C-alpha cells in the first residue's frame, strides 16, 4: 500500500519536473484527431507540421532577440471531442508547459481547448469555422483556414454570374457544429444574391445510404444543390444518387477540401461540381512550396494535401515571422504583432485581418480558391486575393 | 365467519390451462389453521402446478384462491409473501453465491426493518434449523442436507402463516429425514405454522401429515387422513396401476 502511494507521488513529481530545460528549443503544440473518422486529417496535418519545422530548423531556426530557437512539435490526439480536446490542452499547458499551439482541429475540441488556453494566456491556431471561436472574447485565438464568411460570397457570386438563370438552391450539411455553422452562413449569402433556399437539410454523420436524402432534396427540383460542409466522398454519393434519379443541375461543394474523393465516389455525376476550398496543389495556380509539399505527401502519405491539412504550414510560417518581429517568445507579444505582419505563407504573401467580420483581425488573409471538376479532374478556376491583403502588400 | 373458524386457505375450483393443455382442472380444497396437509400424486399429476398457483407463481385460468379470507388470485408473489404465504423451491432453492447468514438476512429484512429485532429473529431461525455451525459458509458449499434445511429457513424467515414445502426431504438419508420431520413438526408446535407439503417419500408423508390430498391427471382424486388414503381403492388403483 505504501509502495502504491509512493508510486503515485513519484509519478506526480516526475510529471511536474519534466518541463524544465527548454532553453534552445521552442515547443509547439498540435491538437489533432488521430483516431476516429477524421483521423486522416490529423495525421496529414501532423506530417505537414513536421515538414514546416524541419525546413525552419534546417535553415538555422528562429532568431528571437539574440537567441536562436529550434522548433519542436508535441502532438496529442483530441479524439474529435471536447473531453479529448481538454485533455490534450491540459497536457500541453500544464504538463509540457507549452504556450503556443500551432494547430488544432475539430470544433468541440477547439472550444474546449480555448477555455484553457485563453485563461492561460496561450496562443492558439486553429482551422475550425464557428464564429463563436473567433472575436474579441478570444484574443489569443488565430485562424489559418478560410471559413464560410470568407469563401461563400465570392464563390456564390462566381456561380451566379456563370449561371444567371439559376434561381433556387437546396442545402445539405452534416448535422454537427461545422455543418450548422455553414448552413446558417449559406442561407444568408444565397438570399443576398436573390436565390430562394428551397430546402435546408442535415444528415447524421453515420448516414450510409444517401438515396432517401437525394429523393427528398429533388422533391423541390432545385436549380442548385449546395452540399456545403458535407465530406466530399459522401457528397460524391449524393450527386451520384441525384444523377440516377434524373437530376442534372448546378452542383456546389462549398467547404469540402478533399476534392479528389468526390470524383472517385461520384464518377460521372461529379462532373462540373464547384468547390470553394478545393485547391489543386499540383496545378498551375499552386505555388512552388505547395507543389513541392504535395509531391512529398503523395510519396510519403500516399495522399494529396488539401487546404485543411496544409493550414498548419501557414500558421507555423506566421509564427516564425511573429517570433522574430516581436523578439520574444511571450504569447501576448506574439499575439500583438501577428495582425501587423506580412509573411510568406504557402499561398504567397499573407497576413491577418477580417476585423470587419469578427471584430478582431485574427483571421488569416488567404486567397479564396474556386475550382471545378472538368473531365474527371479538379481544375482551379480562380484564386481571389482578398482586398484587405492587396492593400497590405 | 370469524377469523378463527374460517379456513386459512381455500382453493375454489381452480383451473390452469397452458395453451391447449389443462394441467389442473377444477380443484377445490381448504387448508385449516394449524394443520399439516400433504399433497401427493404420481408424476405429472399437477402437484407442481397447484403449488405454483397457490404461491402466486402462476395465475389461475379459472376459479380463485383465498388466503385468510382475502381473494389472492391476482396478487404477485412478493405481496403474498408479505401477508404470510411462503414457499420453498424444489431446485436451486438457495442464493448459492451468498453465505448462509446472508441468505437468512435477505429473507428476514423484508419483514423486520429494525436491526436489533432482526438479529433476534435471525438467531431464532438459525437455532430452530440448527444452522449455527455453518453460518459463514457459502450456500453452494453446504452439504445437501443443510442446503434443503436452509431453503426452509429462508421461507420461514417471515414467520408465514402458511408454509408450502416443495419436496423438502429429497435426497435425505433416514436420519436426515427424521431430523427434517422434527423441524417441520416444531414449526407447527412452536409457531402455529400451517404447512402444505409435496413429498415423494410416502412413509415420511404418512407419518407427518394430518390430512392428505391425492391428485391424479390434474384432478382431485380424494382426500383424507393417512389411513383413509392408504385404504382408498381408487387411490391405490391410481398409484399401483401406474407403477405396474
Amino acid at each position, binding site marked *: *500500500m505504501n509502495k*502504491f*502511494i509512493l508510486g*503515485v507521488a513519484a*509519478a*506526480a513529481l516526475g*510529471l*511536474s519536473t519534466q518541463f524544465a530545460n527548454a532553453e534552445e528549443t521552442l515547443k509547439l503544440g498540435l491538437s489533432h484527431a*488521430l*483516431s476516429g473518422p477524421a483521423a486522416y486529417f*490529423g*495525421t496529414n496535418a501532423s506530417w505537414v507540421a513536421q515538414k514546416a519545422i524541419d525546413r525552419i530548423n534546417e535553415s538555422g531556426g528562429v532568431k528571437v532577440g539574440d537567441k536562436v530557437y529550434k522548433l519542436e512539435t*508535441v*502532438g*496529442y*490526439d483530441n479524439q*474529435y*471531442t*471536447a*473531453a479529448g*480536446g*481538454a*485533455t*490534450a490542452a*491540459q*497536457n500541453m499547458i*500544464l504538463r509540457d508547459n507549452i504556450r503556443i499551439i500551432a494547430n488544432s482541429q475539430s*470544433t*468541440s475540441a477547439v*472550444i*474546449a481547448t480555448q*477555455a*484553457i488556453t485563453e485563461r492561460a494566456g496561450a496562443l492558439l491556431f486553429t482551422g475550425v469555422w464557428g464564429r*463563436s471561436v473567433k472575436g474579441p472574447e478570444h484574443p489569443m485565438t488565430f485562424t489559418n483556414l478560410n471559413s464560410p464568411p470568407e469563401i461563400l460570397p465570392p464563390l456564390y457570386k462566381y456561380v451566379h454570374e456563370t449561371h444567371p438563370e439559376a434561381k433556387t438552391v437546396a442545402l445539405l450539411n452534416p448535422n*454537427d*457544429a461545422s*455543418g*450548422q455553422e455553414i448552413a446558417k452562413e449559406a442561407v444568408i449569402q444565397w438570399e443576398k444574391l436573390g436565390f430562394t433556399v428551397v430546402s435546408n437539410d442535415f444528415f447524421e454523420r453515420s448516414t450510409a445510404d444517401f438515396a432517401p436524402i437525394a429523393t427528398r432534396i429533388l422533391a423541390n427540383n432545385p436549380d442548385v444543390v449546395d452540399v456545403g460542409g458535407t465530406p466530399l466522398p459522401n457528397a460524391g454519393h449524393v450527386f451520384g444518387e441525384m444523377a440516377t434519379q434524373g437530376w442534372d443541375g448546378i452542383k456546389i461543394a462549398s467547404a469540402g477540401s478533399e476534392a479528389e474523393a468526390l470524383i472517385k465516389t461520384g464518377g460521372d455525376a461529379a462532373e462540373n461540381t464547384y468547390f470553394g476550398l478545393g485547391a489543386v496543389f499540383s496545378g498551375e495556380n499552386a505555388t512552388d512550396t505547395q507543389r513541392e509539399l504535395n509531391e512529398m505527401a503523395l510519396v510519403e502519405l500516399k495522399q494529396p494535401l488539401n487546404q485543411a491539412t496544409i493550414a498548419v504550414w501557414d500558421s507555423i510560417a506566421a509564427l516564425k515571422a511573429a517570433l522574430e518581429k516581436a523578439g520574444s517568445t511571450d504569447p501576448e507579444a506574439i499575439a500583438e504583432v501577428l495582425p501587423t505582419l506580412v509573411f510568406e505563407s504557402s499561398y504567397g504573401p499573407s497576413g491577418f485581418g477580417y476585423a470587419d467580420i469578427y471584430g478582431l483581425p485574427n483571421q488569416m488573409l488567404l486567397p479564396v480558391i474556386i475550382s471545378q471538376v472538368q473531365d474527371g479532374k479538379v481544375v482551379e478556376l480562380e484564386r481571389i486575393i482578398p482586398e484587405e491583403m492587396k492593400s497590405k502588400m | 365467519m370469524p377469523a378463527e373458524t374460517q379456513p386459512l386457505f381455500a382453493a375454489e375450483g381452480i383451473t390452469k390451462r397452458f395453451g391447449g393443455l389443462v394441467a389442473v382442472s377444477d380443484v377445490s380444497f381448504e387448508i385449516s389453521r394449524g394443520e399439516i396437509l400433504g399433497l401427493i400424486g404420481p408424476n405429472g399429476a399437477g402437484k407442481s402446478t397447484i403449488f405454483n398457483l397457490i*404461491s402466486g*407463481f402462476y395465475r389461475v385460468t379459472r376459479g380463485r384462491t383465498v388466503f385468510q379470507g382475502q381473494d389472492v388470485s391476482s396478487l*404477485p408473489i*412478493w*405481496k403474498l*409473501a*408479505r401477508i404470510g404465504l*411462503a*414457499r420453498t*423451491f424444489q431446485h436451486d*432453492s*438457495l*442464493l*448459492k453465491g*451468498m453465505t448462509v447468514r*446472508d441468505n437468512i*438476512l*435477505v429473507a428476514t429484512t*423484508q419483514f423486520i426493518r429494525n436491526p436489533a429485532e432482526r438479529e433476534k429473529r435471525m438467531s431464532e431461525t438459525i437455532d430452530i434449523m440448527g444452522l449455527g455451525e455453518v453460518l459463514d459458509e457459502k450456500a453452494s458449499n453446504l452439504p445437501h442436507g443443510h442446503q434443503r434445511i436452509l431453503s426452509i429457513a*429462508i*421461507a420461514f424467515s*417471515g414467520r408465514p402463516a402458511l408454509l408450502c414445502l416443495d419436496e423438502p426431504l429429497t435426497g435425505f438419508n433416514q436420519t436426515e429425514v427424521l431430523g427434517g420431520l422434527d423441524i417441520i413438526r416444531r414449526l407447527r408446535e412452536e409457531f402455529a405454522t400451517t404447512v402444505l407439503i409435496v413429498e415423494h417419500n410416502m412413509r415420511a408423508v404418512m407419518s407427518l401429515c394430518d390430512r392428505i390430498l391425492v391428485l391424479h391427471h390434474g384432478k382431485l382424486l380424494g382426500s383424507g387422513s393417512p389411513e383413509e388414503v392408504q385404504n382408498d381403492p381408487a387411490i391405490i388403483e391410481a398409484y399401483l396401476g401406474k407403477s405396474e
Partner: protein
Amino acid sequence: MLFDKLNLLFLATVAASVAYCLAVPGAFFVQVILWATLAATLGAGIRFVMLVGELNIGTSAFYGIGGYTAAYLTTAYGLPFGVALVAAGIAGGLVAAVFGYATMRTSGAYFMLISFAFAEIFRMLVVESDFLGGNNGIIGLFVSVEYEPYFAATVVAILATLISALAVIENSSLGKSFIAIREREEIARSVGINVLAIRVLCLVISSVVIAVAGACSGFITHLVTPNDYTFMIAVFALAYVKLGGEEHPTGPILGAILLTLAAQYLISFGAYQQVFFGTVIAVAMILLPQGITGRLRDLVRLTAKRTARDAG
C-alpha cells in the same frame, strides 16, 4: 482480510489525493487525479447496477444528464456549482426512475441493448435541442475564481464519499437484496422482495451518483458537448470494472486509476491509445476473468492454504 486492506488503501489514496489537490491546485497531476476520480465513479456506478445482474450501457446517458443539467443551470440561471451538483443528482435519479420503471422488466441481453439505445437517444436528443447548444454544447463552465483552488479537492472528496456510500449500501441488507435478485430472482420474490421496485431503486441510486460525476465532468473540461457522452463512456467504465475485478467495490477504482494513469502516458501515441485500451480489455478478459482484485484474492487464499499445509 485482503478486502479490508483494499478498503484502507482506498481511504489512504483519497486522503492523499485531496491533500495534493489542496497543496498544488494548478498542477497537471491534479487534472490526472480528477480524471481518475471521474473514472472511478463511473466504474463504481456501472458496477452497482451489475449487483442486480444488468449491464447498463445507459450509464453514459446519466453521466450526460448530470453534465447537461449542471451546465444548463449554471449558465442559464447562474446557479452556484454546489446547487447544480444537487440538481444534477436529482435529475439523474428522476430520469432513472422513469427509464427503469419502463425497462427493468427486461433483463440480460434485452436490457443491455435497450440501455444502449437509451444512450444513443440521449445523445441525439441533445444534438437536436437548441437550448442545450445542439452539437456545440454549452461552453464556459467555470466555478467562481475564489473557489477555484478548492475545486479539485472538493470534487475528489464528494465523489469519493459517493463511491463509499455505494459500498455501504452494497453491504447493507438492501445491497444483499440486490445480489439476491441477481442470484435467483424467484427466491427473492418468494421472500417478499418487490423485484421490479428494488431493481429500479438500484438503477436510481447508481444514476444519481453517475449524474453528480457527470456534473463535475463539465466543470473539469469547462464545457459539455454531445460527443463527450457517447456509449464509449460506459465501455470504458466496464473496462475499469473488468480490469480491477467486479467482486469488490475497490476493483473498479483500481482499474480506473491504472487505466487513467496509462492513458496519460499513452495520449501522445495517438490512435495506438485506442488499440492499447482494446488490448487491455480483451487480454484482461482472457487472463484475468476475475480482474486484478479477484486474482489477488485467489493468490492470498492459495498462500494461506500453503502456509496452513506446511504448518500442518
